[in-house]
């Protein structure tokens, strides 16, 4: 008996539309909607089909709870394959499908299949070796997409590795990403070989592509500095002593703001730096050296600018992925923009 577990959103489960997007996780011991079509197509095999339905908003707003419920269903049902979607170009649904398939494949090490359009933001959440069937941008491409799902299930049941890889090449979305592979030659041999090629004027190829960092130009101040409200922002990890909010010292996922409205100076012993990327002893000795409050107060009194914002913002810029940092930066920028800030001094390490 082959067990297939299929994740669909509230709409494809027939629960309802946008008004039911907050629907919590529901386990159904049978196929629903698109699942019934797939089940029917592969019915020559003994299949036990079950469905997990969840509202699009619920999944994103209550991700922890949703995953907990889905984990329980998977542990109980013990599927051989996990399906999600297809999501076409639906963003929230696509993200949920990609996240779930990656998570299921990582944790239960079973094949996970989803389908989406190349423009779906869910692409960014696709883990290694997932099957992401290429679809059109709308449900108009449903019939051929479901045929693809069924075909892949047939091939997975047959365990025909070549047919499965052929399927991947023909029907899955190419999403070029870098992962670890094993070669037969250690780095020290390849390095010397590459150097000799370089020295002997032979053609050579770098193993790591050079991808330039996205350059974000520093914007010019739109008004006069004299009238500006200025905020202090740092990636240097400075937090009140004891780190009350548990800012991570590396691989940061959060940012915080701390009040400085009633201070002229950040005193030693009242703040500490949570950061594994630089020697924090200078900052611990004088926290103003990463969040220069003392200097800013002098300039404020001298009316070089109008006002210093009464909070500083902090994250830890080390060990984290650039995409995560971009998210954190956008979060801080949104808050600043909403607080009437005209300028920012961003201190980095």
């Amino acid at each position: 008996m082959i067990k297939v577990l299929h994740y669909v959103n509230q709409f494809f489960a027939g629960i309802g539309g946008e008004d039911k997007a907050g629907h919590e996780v529901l386990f159904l011991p049978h196929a629903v909607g698109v699942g019934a079509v797939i089940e029917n197509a592969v019915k020559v095999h003994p299949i036990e089909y079950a469905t997990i339905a969840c509202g699009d908003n619920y999944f994103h707003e209550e991700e922890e709870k949703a995953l907990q419920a889905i984990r329980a269903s998977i542990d109980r049902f013990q599927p051989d394959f996990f399906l999600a979607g297809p999501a076409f170009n639906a963003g929230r649904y696509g993200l949920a499908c990609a996240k779930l398939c990656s998570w299921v494949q990582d944790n239960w090490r079973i094949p996970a299949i989803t389908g989406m359009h190349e423009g779906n933001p869910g692409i960014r959440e696709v883990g290694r070796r997932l099957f992401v069937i290429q679809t059109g941008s709308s449900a108009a491409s449903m019939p051929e997409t479901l045929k693809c799902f069924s075909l892949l299930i047939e091939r997975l049941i047959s365990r025909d590795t070549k047919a499965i890889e052929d399927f991947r090449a023909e029907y899955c979305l190419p999403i070029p990403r870098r992962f670890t592979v094993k070669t037969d030659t250690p780095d020290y041999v390849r390095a010397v070989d590459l150097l000799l090629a370089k020295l002997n004027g032979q053609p050579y190829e770098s193993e790591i592509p050079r991808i330039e960092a996205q350059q974000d130009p520093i914007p010019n101040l739109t008004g006069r500095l004299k009238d500006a409200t200025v905020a202090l922002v740092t990636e240097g990890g400075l937090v009140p002593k004891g780190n009350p909010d548990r800012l991570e010292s590396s691989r940061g996922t959060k940012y915080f703001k701390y009040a400085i409205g009633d201070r002229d100076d950040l005193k030693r012993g009242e703040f500490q730096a949570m950061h594994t990327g630089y020697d924090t002893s200078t900052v611990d000795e004088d926290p103003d050296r990463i969040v220069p409050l003392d200097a800013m107060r002098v300039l404020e009194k001298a009316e070089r600018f109008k006002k210093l914002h009464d909070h500083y913002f902090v994250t830890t810029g080390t060990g984290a992925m650039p995409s995560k940092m971009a998210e954190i930066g956008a979060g801080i920028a949104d808050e600043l923009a909403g607080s009437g800030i005209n300028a920012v001094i961003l201190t980095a390490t």
Partner: protein
Amino acid sequence: MELELFDYSIDELRWGERTALTGKSLSVHAPDLRELLKDLSHDIHVDYEIARPGESKRIVHVLDTVLPIAKLPGHATTFPGFDSPAQLVGTGKTNRIRNLLVTVTGRFPNVEALTPIEKPREGILDMGGVGAPFSYGSDCFHLILSLTPASSVSNATFDQSLRNMAIRCARYLAQVEKTNSESEKQVISLKPVSEHLPTVVLIYQVQSQLCCARTFYYAEEVSKTLPTFVHPAEFFDGAVVSGNYKSERKIPTSQHCANPFIAELLERHGKSMNFLGAILSRGYNDSFEQKKKMGLWVARLARNLGAEGAIAIMEGTGNGTVDFMQTVKACEDEGIKTVAVLHESNGPKGYERPLVDHPKEADGMISRGNVSERMYIPPLATVIGGSEIDLHLKASHDPRLPFLFDPTIFFGSYGKMGSSGFRAEYEN
């Protein structure tokens, strides 16, 4: 300069009534070690354990591994400056047991008193299973000193003691009585070779910042020195010693003594190249100007050694990559063709920019794989060294249970991934 290296290897490590090497079997009498380390282990409890290649064993909280090397009587001592006054090394005769490591495990006594950068990072060493090709030393025998310090021991004392204990133990094991054991003799030198062969240096950048994140040269912190020439034979005698507990990225002391890049360059010396030796430099300088200068000085030294080409390796990640890339750039600017070796951080989903810094001059990169790719790590039969591991300050985990993590949880993984032949590639 010439070093005669007498290389022993073992095929069995076991507890015995005496400490001796018979044929290829090393027996160790634990009370001998206890006696040996007595004056170094005040308030530090030591458990002795053994692990063999391929065994289903996971060693946790690994802080360092040290290779048994000892000078024959009448010469200086190996690991100059540690537990003995420093003398020049790299000449004379040295005994080595090439597939045995003295492995130190433990947790610092007052972790909360350490700043984030000083805090050791968890390093596990899997002797078998999927983790083995990611764990430095999984192909060696291990004599493990599992240390438990009393809370009265200071972090600084513990740091110093664990290094001296391992080094003393390593010297002792290399000197044990040998019966019917044959050694292979190697001569480590840089003999003059044909002047038509291209001249190559090895740029060897270590992490050296502060306590718990530093490297020593003749027991002096590399952060207090300028880039310097080091003869390969000096490495074989333990001139470079690790005091860095950034586990995944560290070059363990045993790898300073037996570095595969040095071995490969010596192997090619006189055949396809003229290997000139190594330049020891440091990364993690505090400012960009300092990083740039470090690169300039390395390039100047390489130029004066007469190098036409360079292989560059580094210990570290992130911050240290900038010093490293400035070095590569400075070499290329000086006309020294350079190949640099690094791990990539492409993220768990593989789409992030591979390197934090990548100037256009660095056009000959060798990859060690994507160190941020998640992997499923099943348990092994036995855990040595502790009952709880620290998932990089974020959570703790019972090492007897499976978990999902990236290769940064393995001891010496960046270097080991390279030796295992891993690299990153585009995949659809």
